[in-house]
């Protein structure tokens, strides 16, 4: 899956996503800082809420559409919209056109969809960042979300960024491509299967001997780190944006 990347813009929109907003706001702040450091202005429309994915994936398309519709007018300028979540980016980039098929706002939805980028992809391929590591030696592992990988074509980008950090050793998971078992309402509709999946994922992460697991999606994060805490694992989890900012800003 390849897409054409625009030249480095003067400004971008930032869509924080509801999970980041409520549970991981620091990841959002870090994402914004990383972009700003490259000399790019960030606009955060205060009217934003949620991309609509929870309802869309749960079989409530009408509700999803109305929530999505509320976002459509928030990003009027022809500049990129950056999201610190591959899953929500996938919703806007891939599913908005499908969700608005036959709707009065179809063209608007398609236009917006075309400007949506996942954060790590944007940092690497549009802003072409080069990161200077200011942290102590650390061993980490990476979990890529399914939607990032398969809906946004974001597989190597986050790892490329991590590899720029000179003091960080990246150990890959044995089953890196495999789902962690979150799947939005799947985790509560099919709790037992979800539990088996997340437990295997944490086993895999622990086996790498890493100190931290990094991910670019708050849904997976909440699931995986939630299970780590539940089983009192030595591992901790962190959002990629926060991790990158922390390592390169040097003051945290």
């Amino acid at each position, binding site marked *: 899956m390849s897409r054409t990347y625009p030249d480095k813009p003067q400004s971008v929109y930032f869509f924080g996503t509801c999970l980041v907003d409520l549970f991981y706001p620091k990841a959002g702040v870090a994402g914004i800082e990383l972009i700003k450091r490259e000399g790019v202005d960030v606009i955060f429309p205060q009217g934003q809420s949620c991309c609509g994915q929870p309802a869309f994936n749960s079989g409530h398309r009408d509700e999803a559409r109305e929530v999505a519709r509320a976002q459509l007018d928030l990003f009027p300028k022809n500049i990129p919209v950056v999201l610190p979540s591959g899953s929500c980016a996938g919703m806007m980039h891939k599913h908005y056109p499908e969700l608005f098929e036959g709707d009065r706002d179809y063209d608007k939805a398609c236009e917006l969809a075309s400007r949506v980028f996942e954060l790590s992809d944007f940092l690497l391929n549009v802003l072409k960042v080069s990161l200077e590591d200011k942290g102590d030696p650390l061993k980490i592992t990476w979990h890529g979300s399914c939607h990032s990988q*398969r809906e946004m074509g974001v597989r190597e980008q986050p790892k490329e960024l991590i590899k720029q950090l000179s003091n960080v050793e990246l150990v890959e998971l044995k089953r890196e491509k495999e789902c962690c078992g979150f799947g939005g*309402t799947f985790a509560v509709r099919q709790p*037992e299967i979800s539990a088996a999946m997340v437990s295997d994922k944490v086993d895999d992460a622990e086996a790498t001997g890493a100190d931290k697991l990094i991910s670019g999606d708050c849904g997976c994060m909440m699931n995986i780190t939630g299970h780590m805490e539940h089983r009192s694992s030595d591992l901790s989890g962190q959002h990629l944006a926060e991790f990158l900012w922390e390592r390169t800003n040097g003051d945290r």
Partner: protein
Amino acid sequence: MGIVNGKNFKGRVSEALKDQELRGNFRKAMDGLMTKRAAQFEDVDEWTRLRALGESIKKRALSKLPELLVQLEENLTKNGIKVHWAENVDQANEIILGILQSHDVKTVVKGKSMVSEEMELNHFLEPHGIKALEADLGEYIVQMAEEMPSHIIMPAIHMNKGQIAKLFEDKLPGTPYTEDAAKLTEIARKELRREFAEAGAGLSGVNFAVAETGTLCLVENEGNGRMVTTVPPVHIAVTGIEKVVENLSDVPALLSLLTRSATGQPITTYFNMISSPRKKGEKDGPEEVHLVLLDNGRSDVYRDAETRDTLQCIRCGACMNHCPVYTRVGGHAYGGVYPGPIGKILTPQLEGLDNYPEHPSASTLCNACVEICPVKIPIAKMLVRLRDENAGNCPHGEHPVKGRGSKSSAVEHASWKGWKAMNANPTTYKVATKAMSKMGNLMPSSLPMLSEWTSVRSKPKFASQTLHDLVKKMDVKDD
């Protein structure tokens, strides 16, 4: 469907998850299959081209399915093959019984056929005094174990060598316990040879039915397919109506996609093309060949432009091999003939959402199946559609799926309405998120959805300030 049903999905899942041996068997087998398939499609360009071709062949065939079926019947008839149409499973069973009885058949040897599983043919024939004997090694094993296949390509994949050895020892008098695969195959072969020689009829499935020439193509590895279609005097092939392709030249691409996706083999050991009964002067082959074309809900699936894509399936099984849910719970948990991702979309469409209410939700929508499906069936999209229908929200009112609205719940509808009210308006969103940041962490873990979540995870912690709030303190514009 009689013995199979989707109702107790969660109960079976629970059982399967507890069975560590079963989980180990699946994990090992699926890991192996994924690796073998990946090796076949290392050349990404070739894969991209070939699967686009595969998809277009199936789409073209489906776009003219009614005409092609007529053409197929004409050409098969011309070739001397008798064609039968069955609207449902009962009709198909009756047709086959009729053929068998007219030849006074007591034993029918079977090649692998998922459609015959769909019909529960073996059970149906039993009280009529007809023994149906599975000749595919995997099918032979599950038949001996009195189970259903747990995978559409590898029916006994849920068992390990030790379990199979024990089964042979228990069920076949005089067989010593051995885990030697070659020896076990040898034993099965000996048993089967005898039956092949005596069987009054052979039954097989069909991988591709070619309309242009009236040819039935059958892919297999063990040679049993060749045996059941040539040794007994009568051969009955049975297939779903979606297996028709237009031309002979459509077959190679699909065959290549099928075998490489299924088992990672570049080609199978046997590829049978059946175009007529035995002709004068020919040394082998059945005197009579029949084809039973089964609908069983397929034309309903066909009628809707969106669900129609389901019928593109070439039954390679790759989606189950790559499915993290299937790998954990195995094929029997699904309670239907078709397990895994394809089963999750096909079974409720054929048998009704009311009979398989959990199928659409038993997926994280991780898209691993979508990524590898050789004919590009949008499985995740279909799952979402079925969820819409399950909730009674189908926007495609013209062709609702059977059993639509079976999971419609007032509580669920109300909570999504509430969710919409909160998220579709910036003011309500701000008020609600402020409240949640303040109070959210006080929610007891025993709340309905939260209790499922916290059974294996800590409770998510609301941040004291939202991103909306934090951003206001930064040098970030609002518009």
